[in-house]
């Protein structure tokens, strides 16, 4: 009876997994073997391994890497500072607050902010730097993406820093380690799990960003996400769209495996 009851509690979760995780992945894999006329084909995969798509894959990974790197560079010090500040809850709320606003709205706002006659350019003009083109280039793309993803990087790192026993730092200091050595040998290794999950939370979604590539980068940055959107919505070539999606899924799974993101490393922090 006990075991049965427990199985029933798990039921909604299993149904959810099957309907919304397993079934879509299987369907995407299935569709990737059909062309526009509904004929079975391997051509989609052959098309993927042509220079156009390989270059796109490369640039997707490159930009996702940049977004992750800059998010980390901003998030780590921010999280560290958060653990030592007074009104912690308030600051965390302020960091989370922007994620309550719709992504598209935030992106649209940047069109105005970065525009030729927007406030940033007005400021640059006043201080004598002169008008710059801020929109529609790689800079604006990385900037807006980092802005959107930074909270997802700060929170896991903050949690990892919180879990760390502060007496370890005092111990390191007592044993004569400099500030940098303490960070490098004690603090960073102990928070690596937070850094890893933060990086995953940023890198994987930024691989398949699409609206920002058009709105902020004016299609000057093309990612795999752009290609998927185009194949599903414009050409209705679901096969090719699915193929790109399958490649992305495999790439993400590999990344998770390589970084040990499947849970083995979580123990590390404790």
């Amino acid at each position, binding site marked *: *009876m006990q075991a049965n*009851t427990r199985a*029933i509690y798990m039921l909604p979760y299993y149904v959810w997994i099957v309907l919304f995780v397993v079934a879509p992945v299987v369907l995407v894999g299935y569709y990737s073997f059909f062309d*526009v*006329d509904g004929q079975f084909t391997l051509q989609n995969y052959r098309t993927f391994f042509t220079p*156009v798509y390989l*270059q*796109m894959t490369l640039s997707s990974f490159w930009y996702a890497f940049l977004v992750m790197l800059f998010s980390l560079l901003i998030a780590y010090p921010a999280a560290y500072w958060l653990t030592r500040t007074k009104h912690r809850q308030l600051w965390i709320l302020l960091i989370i607050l922007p994620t309550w606003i719709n992504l598209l709205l935030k992106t649209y706002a940047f*069109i105005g902010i970065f*525009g*030729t*006659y927007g406030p940033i350019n007005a400021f640059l003009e006043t201080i004598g730097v002169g008008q710059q*083109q801020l*929109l*529609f280039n790689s800079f604006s793309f990385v900037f807006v993406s980092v802005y959107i993803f930074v909270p997802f990087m700060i929170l896991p790192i903050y949690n990892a820093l919180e879990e760390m026993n502060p007496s370890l730092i005092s111990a390191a200091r007592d044993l004569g380690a400099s500030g940098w050595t303490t960070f490098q040998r004690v603090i960073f290794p102990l928070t690596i799990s937070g850094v890893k999950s933060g990086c995953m939370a940023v890198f994987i979604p930024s691989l398949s960003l699409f609206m920002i590539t*058009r*709105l902020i*980068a*004016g*299609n*000057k940055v*093309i990612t795999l996400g752009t*290609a998927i959107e*185009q*194949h599903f*919505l*414009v*050409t*209705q*070539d679901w096969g*090719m769209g699915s193929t790109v999606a399958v490649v992305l899924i495999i790439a993400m799974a590999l990344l998770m495996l390589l970084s040990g993101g499947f849970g083995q490393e979580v123990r590390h922090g404790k």
Partner: protein
Amino acid sequence: MKAISRTFIVIIAVALLLMFVANRLNVSQGYAGSNTLTIYNWGDYIDPELLTKFQKETGITVIYQTFDSNEAMLTKIEQGGTTFDVAIPSDYAISKMREENLLIPLDHSKLPNLKNIDPSFLNLSFDPDNKYSAPYFWGTLGIVYNPKLTNLKFHSWDDLWNPSLRNNVLLTDGAREVLGMSLSSLGYSLNDTNDQHLQAALAKLKKLTPNVKAIVGDEIKMLLANNEAAAGLVFSGDASEIMDQNPDLDYVVPDQGSNLWFDNMVIPKTAANIDGAHKFINFMMNPEVAAQNAEYVGYATPNDAALKLLPEDISSDERFYPSKQVLKRLEVFDNLGKKMLVHYNELFLQFKMNK
């Protein structure tokens, strides 16, 4: 355990009861009956006063829903489960719907106002003999430019390639439009499927890259109106909206030729009120109604009788009602089939990736 199953049963029972009540309500309010008409149109593409007028005249309650792309509309109608009585897709989408048997033929005897339509807008390639569709609005593809930011006059597509426009041109994010522009500038048809011609068009487009500031969607209207670029490739309908916001700008259809597009009224297979749908289509082709609608929306009306009722400054505006000579050089986008569409998009992607 017992408590849980009881909760489950109660929830399911309540859900079923609500479903029944909702169904009864729909029937009693006429949402499922014959006294309503569901119209599926582009956003902000009708004078809302006309809907009220139609309701008063016929006693039919109008339910108005909007879409923002032909593809979204197609998908929704294909999937079924909707009761759209009238939809207003563009030319190539109509041809697609015709092929996929998604349309109900029009009964011309119920559409006496069809006689008001200019014959040059009837019997076109996407719908021979107007078996399935009646014209609603039409327009062109051209260049919106900002005389404050450039001295060029844009008589030809090639002006967009002018080195003075470096990083100052916006393009609409559409494979047919952008490749079509390049094809047209080379003297080829917008519906060219010859691969050599398409490659030549792509090669020419790649030379445009230094001038392209961005390839964007609907934002192009806002960006051009805000003086973000000197020129942009847009449809005439968008152009009239942009010029409403920023009167400095001007619109031109290049001499070499361009695209001529139509949005026509059709009755999808999903229709529940076919008679009402005919009444609505006929109503919209009434000269006074069409004129009022054209003034409100700002697009070009195909209705000859309505055109005569429009103020002189609108009907003689050659930017939006081009002369017969210009009209001759314009082409409707044919439905080239899915394979060709994929190929066009593949080439367009290569252009976008070009650095």
